[in-house]
């Protein structure tokens, strides 16, 4: 992460208000810049506005004020090289695992044969080579999220937006999935914005941790530790304490 290079994603004075003007804003004048290939975690309690911010970056929700730029261009809608992984159940239940990944690949402009090849490759990458024919309803929660990651990667996006993708998984599967995501990310570098409410998850994954509270950014921490990170590394634990205290 170098401050000199032009940022990949720029969030400029973004505010968001749902309903009428009397309601409290969900986001207030948020500024943020993410460098190319940077892994940024948005961390905060439920209702702090982190998911809304992610949806605005994705172009799914328009900001009330301010703008988001990707490569210097204002975001006006979803798609265009921004892959997204949702918390859960966003796979198309009527398509097989392979069909879901193929759907993404076809959307990136590949023909049927090419999409099939990409789908096989990506299912292999997320360790689901033998599960391509299964429907999402026949897969475990962890497997479903692997398929969702593969589907987002099939778009070959430059940016990967992840909305608490492991939030519904049990702790052990969640740790596996974090390692898996880092492995995938190391082989396919992307700019990642990852929303989580787990401090430990943010510490394990992010280059930078953006702590949000009350609709604005409360603090930004550089992690600066080599991956894979040990969860008992004293430096990591110190940062954990700092973040924890900052949240109160």
């Amino acid at each position, binding site marked *: 992460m170098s401050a000199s290079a032009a940022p990949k994603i720029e969030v400029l004075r973004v505010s968001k208000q749902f309903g009428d003007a009397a309601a409290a804003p969900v986001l207030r004048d948020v500024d943020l810049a993410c460098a190319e290939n940077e892994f940024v975690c948005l961390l905060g309690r439920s209702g702090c506005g982190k998911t809304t911010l992610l949806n605005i970056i994705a172009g799914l929700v328009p900001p009330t004020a301010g703008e988001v730029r990707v490569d210097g261009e204002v975001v006006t809608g*979803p*798609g265009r090289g921004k892959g*997204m992984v949702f918390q859960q159940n966003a796979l198309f*239940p*009527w398509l097989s695992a392979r069909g879901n990944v193929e759907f993404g690949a076809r959307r990136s402009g590949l023909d049927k044969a090419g999409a099939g090849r990409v789908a096989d490759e990506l299912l292999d990458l997320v360790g689901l080579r033998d599960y391509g024919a299964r*429907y999402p309803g026949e897969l475990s929660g962890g497997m479903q999220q692997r398929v969702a990651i593969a589907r987002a990667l099939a778009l070959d996006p430059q940016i990967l937006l992840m909305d608490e993708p492991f939030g519904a998984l049990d702790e052990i599967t969640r740790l596996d999935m974090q390692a898996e995501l880092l492995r995938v990310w190391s082989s396919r570098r992307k700019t990642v914005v990852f929303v989580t409410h787990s401090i430990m998850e943010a510490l394990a994954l992010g280059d930078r941790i953006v702590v949000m509270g009350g609709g604005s950014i409360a603090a930004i921490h550089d992690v600066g530790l080599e991956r894979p990170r040990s969860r008992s590394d004293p430096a990591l634990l110190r940062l954990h304490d700092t973040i924890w205290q900052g949240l109160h």
Partner: protein
Amino acid sequence: MGAAATRHAAVLQGAGFIVSLLLLWELASALGWLRPHSFPPPSRIAQGAWELAVRGFPEGVRVWTHTLVTLRRIFSGFALAMLAAIPLGLLIGRSPTLDALTNPVITFARSVATLSLLPLVIVWFGTGELSKTLLIAYGCFWVMLSNVIAGVKYVDPVLVRAARTMDTPGREIFTHIVLPAALPRIFAGARTALGVGFMVIVGAEMIGTIEGLGALIMEARTFYRTDVTIVGMMLLGVMGVLFALGMEALERRLLPWHRGLSEVRR
């Protein structure tokens, strides 16, 4: 004791209970405790079934004719309703304005008991086949229409969002996302509609016709042949069960992913 053994015991108990009820019924009839006209014993009913299959009731109109006539009426009305309700429902479900515009009318039309239209339909179209088909079509249509609309309207928004993050154009979101996501609901609508058609036909056939199972059970009563009435009721029951099983099999066949989902969630 395992779950299979428990189920086994339950089936045995149930079957034993039914067999003893039938035996008791036969016995009570033989001893003169039950009037055979009101409660024809199982042996009489079996004779009635035989007669219905061989000679027919009324004479010459055999059970196959009654069954086929009823089936034909249900299916023609049902098919008519599907043809009209599916495209219309897709159209209305896509447009919030159309939905708001039509909602009260649809709600009211659904509340009108289908058979209450019988006198009107007879005045308009006589007592022939057209009246029965239209009546069944009416009953099936509104059930189907509201299910198709709901299916399109209540598609899980996260699926649409996911498609939008993959640059899917609006037209394809409808054909590739909304339509398949609505299918289970549409299927449920078809199943309910068939049930409605099944209910309506019995009532419709009781008036102004001698063919069809509804007519059969009513005619048989008029001629003091309650054994034949009960055979007709049993046939209607079997038909209902076969319909339900058929729709289930069709759904498993056409929507294999949906069954998988419900099994995992259970």
